[in-house]
């Protein structure tokens, strides 16, 4: 038996780093903080790799299935006789995979940031937050129960908040961080209620229980319904709401583009590779439950995923901020993953969607991190986010250019890069399940290729604007992660995912479906070609098209005005129509009533003062009147 208890260090090291850098960081030189953080993360990465190696290659399988191991599980809080919140480390295929993803990307970002963040005020703070984030994300990944996951889920949200708002003196960053937090928080409300509902029936938070036979049995047999849907479906949909918030699914996606206000390495780590896929991970975690107890919820997930991927891809085509393009691209890709989960069945071949989703999660993490880090390198060079202010950068940034190109090709799904393999599996899954969604995804594949190459050509080719400083290639500490991730983007596609990560943890064989693969590569090429025609050189074709589209373009450019709708709802309705009246009501009605009591008392006091007139005979009159009144009352009325 292989002991996984060392995995706890994967959590301890980053939190220790956080405390060290957070409390004492200011005492260190910035560079020392950076190096400390990076080394810590390096150790974490190695531990994760070692764990992955042991898990997939050394640990014996039981009945051919990968084991689910509770490396640690201590009771953190007793809630009731049956419900406890535990904290622990759960080892199973997806958690191990996620460990690898998170630690790798995090390490790369740590390393990269040494260069990127150099000279920034709050360098130590940045590293402290990065460590905190990494800790939270890893904790989320290895959660043994849904409540632990929720806990780290929240922590992840906060670290994201802190990192987006890293440039706290910039109002836009503050606003973005706030927005990110509140939107995800709103989604988390759903998650929480979902957890509460689910755990009420399953009497447990533990994944082993609730996704095990007992949990499935209980949830399947729930007869209670609410508004026509079974309680189980409600619970799982609400949980998905949490996932949708974190993963920025439509309509909870609005925070992600704004989150790009954070430093670019943060965007790479949190808003591209790791945190935003937490929603996907969550659904994958509870997949058996979804699959057996609430197939309706899965359908919803697949449509939400499909719609988001299309929606975001369309918007991505019109954006000029390169990070925003990447952000919408992320949305779109996560939509893919969600869709894949939504169309997946449980077990063996039917579970290809599940496998594909995880696969795509993995490859996407690599190439999207690469894209973001590359974008960071570009921004580092030209000090702008806007592609209009860029062009012809291939000469100045050779390494960035090359790695960026690889990433673009990967995301466009060209054979044999990793993106091709994972996207292909997703298309296969959709193809087998739902033709409508398949066509949507097929279209999105083309759009993806188009907008990525639009970005690529605008930045690296096209007309060169006037640069204030001559752009120069980033230092090695930044390009090494780029190169590493580029290699990963190229080769991770060859990993035998279906042998490792499947819905029922039993390996199965997949073969490439040429009926899907060839058209998908083809449409990718078409997308690239269009982008090439439009953006390779500076020309007026784009303007004509934009003019031709008219209002449609403006709508897309303004992201379908979803932000405005939200603003309307929050500012006008919640703030103005609820909160403000509540505040007014409180001051004037409730408090007014209390003050009114006092006022009436004072008024009464003033009104009756005349009785004490100083006139003896008035006093006597009251006296006699009182006596007679009492006498009458008690002689005639009193029984």
């Amino acid at each position: 038996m292989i002991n996984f208890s060392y995995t706890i260090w994967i959590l301890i090291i980053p939190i220790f780093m956080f405390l060290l850098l957070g409390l004492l960081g200011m005492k260190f030189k910035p560079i020392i903080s950076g190096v400390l953080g990076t080394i810590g993360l390096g150790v974490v990465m190695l531990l994760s790799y070692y764990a992955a190696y042991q898990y997939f290659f050394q640990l014996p399988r039981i009945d051919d299935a990968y084991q689910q191991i509770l490396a640690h599980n201590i009771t953190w809080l007793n809630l009731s006789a049956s419900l406890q919140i535990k904290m622990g480390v759960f080892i199973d295929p997806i958690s191990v995979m996620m460990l690898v993803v998170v630690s790798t990307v995090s390490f790369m970002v740590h390393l990269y940031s040494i260069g990127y963040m150099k000279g920034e005020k709050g360098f130590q703070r940045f590293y402290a937050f990065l460590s905190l984030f990494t800790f939270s994300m890893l904790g989320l990944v290895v959660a043994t129960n849904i409540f632990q996951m929720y806990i780290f889920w929240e922590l992840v949200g906060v670290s994201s908040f802190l990192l987006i708002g890293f440039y706290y003196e910039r109002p836009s960053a503050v606003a973005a961080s706030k927005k990110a937090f509140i939107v995800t928080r709103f989604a988390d409300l759903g998650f929480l209620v979902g957890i509460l509902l689910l755990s009420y029936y399953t009497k447990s938070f533990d994944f082993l229980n609730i996704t095990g036979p007992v949990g499935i049995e209980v949830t399947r047999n729930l007869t209670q319904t609410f508004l026509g849907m079974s309680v189980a479906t409600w619970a799982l949909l609400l949980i998905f709401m949490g996932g949708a918030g974190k993963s920025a699914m439509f309509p909870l996606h609005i925070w992600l583009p704004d989150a790009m206000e954070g430093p670019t390495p943060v965007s790479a780590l949190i808003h591209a590779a790791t945190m935003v896929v937490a929603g996907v991970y969550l659904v994958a975690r509870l997949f058996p439950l979804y699959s057996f107890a609430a197939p309706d919820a899965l359908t919803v997930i697949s449509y939400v995923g499909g719609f988001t991927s299309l929606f975001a891809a369309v918007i991505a085509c019109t954006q000029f901020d390169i990070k925003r393009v990447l952000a919408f691209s992320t949305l779109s890709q996560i939509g893919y993953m969600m869709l894949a989960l939504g169309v997946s069945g449980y077990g063996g071949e039917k579970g290809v969607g599940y496998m594909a989703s995880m696969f795509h999660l993995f490859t996407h993490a690599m190439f999207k991190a690469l894209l973001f880090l590359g974008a960071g390198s570009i921004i580092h060079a030209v000090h702008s986010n806007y592609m209009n202010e860029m062009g012809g950068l291939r000469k100045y940034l050779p390494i960035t250019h090359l790695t960026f190109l690889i990433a673009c090709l990967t995301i466009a799904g060209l054979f044999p890069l990793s993106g091709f393999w994972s996207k292909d599996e997703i298309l296969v899954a959709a193809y087998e399940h739902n033709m409508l969604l398949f066509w949507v995804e097929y279209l999105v594949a083309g759009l993806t290729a188009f907008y990525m190459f639009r970005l690529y050509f605008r930045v690296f080719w096209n007309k060169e604007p006037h640069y204030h400083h001559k752009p120069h290639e980033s230092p090695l500490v930044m390009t090494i992660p780029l190169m590493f991730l580029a290699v990963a983007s190229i080769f991770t596609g060859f990993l035998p995912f279906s042998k490792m990560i499947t819905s029922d943890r039993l390996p199965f064989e997949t073969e490439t479906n040429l009926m899907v693969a060839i058209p998908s590569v083809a449409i990718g090429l078409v997308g690239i070609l269009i982008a090439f025609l439009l953006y390779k050189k500076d020309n007026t074709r784009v303007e004509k098209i934009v003019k031709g589209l008219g209002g449609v373009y403006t709508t897309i450019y303004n992201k379908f005005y979803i932000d405005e709708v939200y603003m309307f709802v929050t500012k006008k309705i919640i703030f103005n129509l609820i909160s403000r009246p509540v505040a007014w009501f409180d001051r004037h009605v409730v408090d007014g009533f209390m003050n009114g009591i006092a006022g009436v008392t004072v008024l009464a006091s003033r009104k009756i003062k005349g009785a004490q007139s100083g006139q003896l005979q008035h006093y006597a009159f009251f006296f006699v009147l009182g006596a007679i009144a009492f006498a009458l009352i008690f002689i005639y009325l009193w029984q």
Partner: protein
Amino acid sequence: MERYGIPLEGFLVISTAMFFIGIYGFLVRKNLITMLMSIELILNSVNINFVAFNSYLFPENMQGNFFALIVVAIAAAEASVAIALIINIYRRFSSIEVEDIDEMKY
């Protein structure tokens, strides 16, 4: 029961009338001395009551009569103090009209 040819009710009517006349006088007369006299009316109505009750209803002992005697005595004491105070008032206010004495109010 009719003793001395006058029914008890007769006394009671008189005494009650005196009582309320006294009260009326106290309430409306403005002169302090007159008010004091009204008080005497009230006290005397009480005396009539006591004495009448005693001799008509409970002649076996003398409680009512004694009470009346004591009341008379106390009324005298009261009147003397009151008149002293009225003199004092006259010194201070140069008036013994009750309406003028309202320095303290509200």
